[in-house]
């Protein structure tokens, strides 16, 4: 099977070329041709306009333009060919990027009279950016330059010089006349100097099977199949080859295991699973694996990170990409929140010039962007793997797909170093208990009691107290919303490290903003760690009456500002695991309630 994307405008004769390809290879049916003839006649054209074959919508036929990507199918005795016909009009880049995203080969059309134009360079650049490694330049309308070998050679050399700047591994040139059919399906008698094959012959023979990554085994878990006595992880192989008996790890948790069995659809046993097979894998161990996890080999893992550098193409005219904006990112089988950190540069798709002063990306624009994701991504660079290196951004307000992204190789300094110790190898299972509430609500007292009881019971635990940490780790931070967010982030990171190490991290921190706490929770969940949010719900008047450090009094007196509960809001947790109120008893009784929750399986 070959998937190809075509690019070029109506003027280059692209639709005519596709029509010719379909017609001469008999992929068009008599009734389709009859409809084209009817419409052509009605429009006063002498010959059947083959372009009409690909223009599916009424508006396209009426306006004589192609609006949207259309898919065409060509089956020859040698191959099934899927053609993504991408129009070169208004949304040219958007359409080309869409078509090229799944293409093995890009077909670029130029008019022999005009030669390489800006648009040809743009299409070649996009094909290269989207990782299409085979490129065919069709020099069309050769009949209008008297079948000139010199003109063809001139265009070929000019394009070769430009293509040196791109990452295209296979470049072919075919002189054609789409209108008359020369070199489209059959070799042309009009160009005896041309020693190559016809376009169709080239498409039938071009070798694309090696373009897949068969080295880095990657299986993003798409769906967990549960049946009587059966738990299998279903997904589409995104890279490499997986075999029963292979040692694997499940990321992000890092559980080691071994593949017991692999099945194709319907329970067909599979000896070797490779892309793009859809398979179901059973592991030797009963693990808690879910959609969004990734199965790979222990010594060949994807990158893990939250700071993502990517080339991004903006796909909508209704908004622009600007630093600070937040989107939902869809990457392999994961869906995470992502924020645009910064736009490094915008690239001029015609000249390849980089504009570092650019502040936004609009429709059809491409730029290098740094994104920060809410949970770590398991990714490879797009160059290495098109499946684990690609993502889309969805606008939450409109639900539209607004951007396509291709991840670039992270710089060496931020590569995650894999561990040799899995979580199951540790003596105890760690987790985080997060006590949130107003100042003087009693968090720290409950936390201290909880820590004492855990340690007594032989369960390693450590208390992370907000006030205490501000003496060291967070000494430089104040109480602005930004500093509070950073404070929560740091404590969250430390708690997570303790939890990974096998301790129960008992955090007592006002942590007034919901978004900050949710971020910590998301990080824990992504790492496969339990996160227990406990809301110490003591009414503000009770807290103020206690006021052991005299803080409320000072806040009321205006000596300090931005004090939670007085002149800064406290955002109540939406779904806490537990709520503690004064009527629950003394700190010991409250700690017992938390403990009961910990002991639950």
């Amino acid at each position: 099977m070959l998937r190809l994307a075509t690019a070029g405008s109506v003027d280059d004769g692209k639709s005519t070329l596709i029509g010719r390809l379909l017609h001469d290879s008999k992929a068009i049916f008599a009734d389709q041709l009859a409809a084209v003839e009817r419409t052509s006649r009605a429009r006063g054209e002498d010959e059947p306009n083959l372009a009409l074959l690909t223009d599916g919508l009424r508006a396209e036929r009426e306006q004589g333009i192609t609006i949207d990507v259309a898919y065409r199918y060509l089956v020859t005795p040698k191959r099934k060919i899927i053609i993504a016909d991408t129009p070169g009009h208004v949304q040219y880049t958007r359409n080309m990027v869409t078509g090229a995203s799944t293409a093995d080969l890009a077909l670029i059309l130029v008019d022999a009279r005009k030669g390489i134009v800006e648009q040809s360079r743009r299409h070649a650049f996009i094909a290269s950016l989207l990782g299409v490694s085979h490129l065919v330049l069709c020099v069309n309308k050769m009949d209008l330059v008297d079948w000139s070998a010199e003109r063809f050679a001139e265009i070929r050399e000019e394009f070769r010089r430009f293509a040196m700047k791109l990452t295209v591994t296979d470049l072919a040139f075919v002189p054609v006349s789409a209108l008359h059919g020369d070199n489209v399906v059959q070799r042309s008698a009009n160009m005896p100097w041309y020693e190559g094959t016809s376009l169709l012959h080239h498409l039938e023979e071009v070798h694309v099977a090696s373009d897949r990554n068969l080295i880095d085994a990657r299986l993003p878990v798409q769906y967990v199949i549960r049946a009587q006595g059966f738990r299998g992880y279903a997904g589409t192989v995104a890279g490499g080859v997986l075999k029963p008996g292979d040692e694997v790890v499940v990321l992000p948790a890092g559980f080691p295991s071994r593949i017991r069995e692999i099945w194709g659809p319907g329970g067909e046993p599979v000896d070797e699973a490779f892309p793009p097979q859809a398979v179901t894998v059973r592991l030797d161990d009963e693990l808690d694996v879910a959609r969004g996890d990734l199965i790979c080999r222990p010594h060949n893992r994807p990158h893990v990170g939250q700071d993502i550098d990517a080339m991004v193409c903006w796909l909508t005219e209704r908004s622009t990409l600007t630093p600070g904006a937040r989107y939902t990112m869809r990457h392999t089988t994961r869906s995470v929140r992502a924020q645009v950190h910064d736009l490094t540069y915008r690239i001029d798709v015609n000249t390849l010039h980089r504009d570092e002063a650019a502040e936004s990306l609009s429709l059809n624009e491409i730029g290098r962007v740094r994104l920060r994701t809410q949970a770590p991504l398991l990714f490879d660079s797009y160059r290495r793997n098109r499946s684990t290196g690609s993502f889309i951004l969805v606008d939450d307000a409109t639900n539209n797909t607004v951007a396509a992204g291709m991840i670039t190789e992270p710089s060496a300094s931020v590569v995650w170093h894999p561990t040799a110790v899995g979580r199951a190898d540790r003596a105890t299972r760690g987790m985080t208990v997060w006590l949130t509430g107003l100042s003087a609500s009693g968090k720290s007292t409950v936390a201290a009691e909880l820590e004492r009881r855990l340690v007594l019971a032989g369960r390693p635990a450590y208390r992370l107290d907000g006030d205490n940490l501000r003496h060291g780790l967070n000494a430089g931070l104040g109480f602005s919303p930004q500093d509070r967010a950073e404070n929560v982030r740091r404590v969250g990171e430390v708690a997570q490290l303790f939890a990974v190490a096998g301790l129960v991290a008992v955090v007592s921190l006002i942590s007034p903003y919901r978004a900050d706490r949710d971020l910590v929770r998301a990080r824990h969940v992504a790492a496969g760690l339990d996160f227990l949010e406990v809301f110490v719900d003591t009414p503000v008047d009770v807290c103020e009456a206690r006021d052991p450090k005299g803080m409320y009094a000072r806040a009321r007196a205006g000596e300090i500002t931005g004090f939670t509960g007085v002149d800064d809001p406290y955002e109540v947790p939406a779904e806490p695991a537990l709520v503690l109120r004064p009527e629950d008893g003394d700190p010991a009784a409250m700690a017992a309630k938390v403990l009961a929750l910990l002991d639950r399986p």
Partner: protein
Amino acid sequence: MTTAYELSPVRALEAESVHVLREVAATFERPALLFSGGKDSVVLLHLAAKAFWPAPVPFPVLHVDTGHNFDEVLEFRDRAVARFGVRLVVAAVQDDIDAGRAVEETGPRASRNRLQTITLLRGIAENGFDAAFGGARRDEEKARAKERVFSFRDEYGQWDPRNQRPELWNLYNGAHRKGEHIRVFPLSNWTELDIWRYIAAERIELPSLYYAHRRPVVHRDGMLLARTRFITLLEGEESFEASVRFRTVGDATCTGCVESTATTAESVITEVAASRITERGATRADDRISEAGMEDRKKEGYF
């Protein structure tokens, strides 16, 4: 050969369809599979059963019943549903006619094809389905060639071909609000020939209509229509018996058949490969309304 790590075209298509089926089951709350008993929906149900093996298909099938069914198809539907152990939901066009939501066409050429849209949208809304799998293929018809795999429908069930979400790689965007839904077409990249090759390779059972059999037929509008109880003969029309098979199965009033002697999937493949007429061109009166017949019906919410 497994050593070359290559899949045959039908196996590559199968993998793609299975990926789509699993993606929907994983990310939607209430999907349903639109099942007509036609070959494409039969293949789709077969693929769904394979995608979730050894667990049962995790969603029901929805049959939009025009009331103008071929008896063989209804009987086949009930057997298929029982065999796969899926729940069957039926939305009947007759109910919408009785309730005054749909008005029956009159005359000898009356068809319930267009009324199906009303019933389909009601079936989706009443059951709260947020995703509906359809067996439509892009090679069938030129408006369908522009269709996405995940195709967004607004709260009125309508398709806006000029405002579709770009669809890249195999990353599908199924985001929608309450009341909106997504039509999902896992067979988008299959051709009629692929479908038949797969039916032959997998030995998939089809309604007997798809294979050559003798039945009374009538010539109308350049097609052969089965002479059923739903057809009123026009003046000058005469029914006669012929050996025929159906290339598509829809409403009995507008689905034609072709003369054929093919009694096995293999012999159908030979016929289809040699055919110079598309399946819809040969046998569907509903597509002959105009150049944009399908586009207009799709915008209203049709399959």
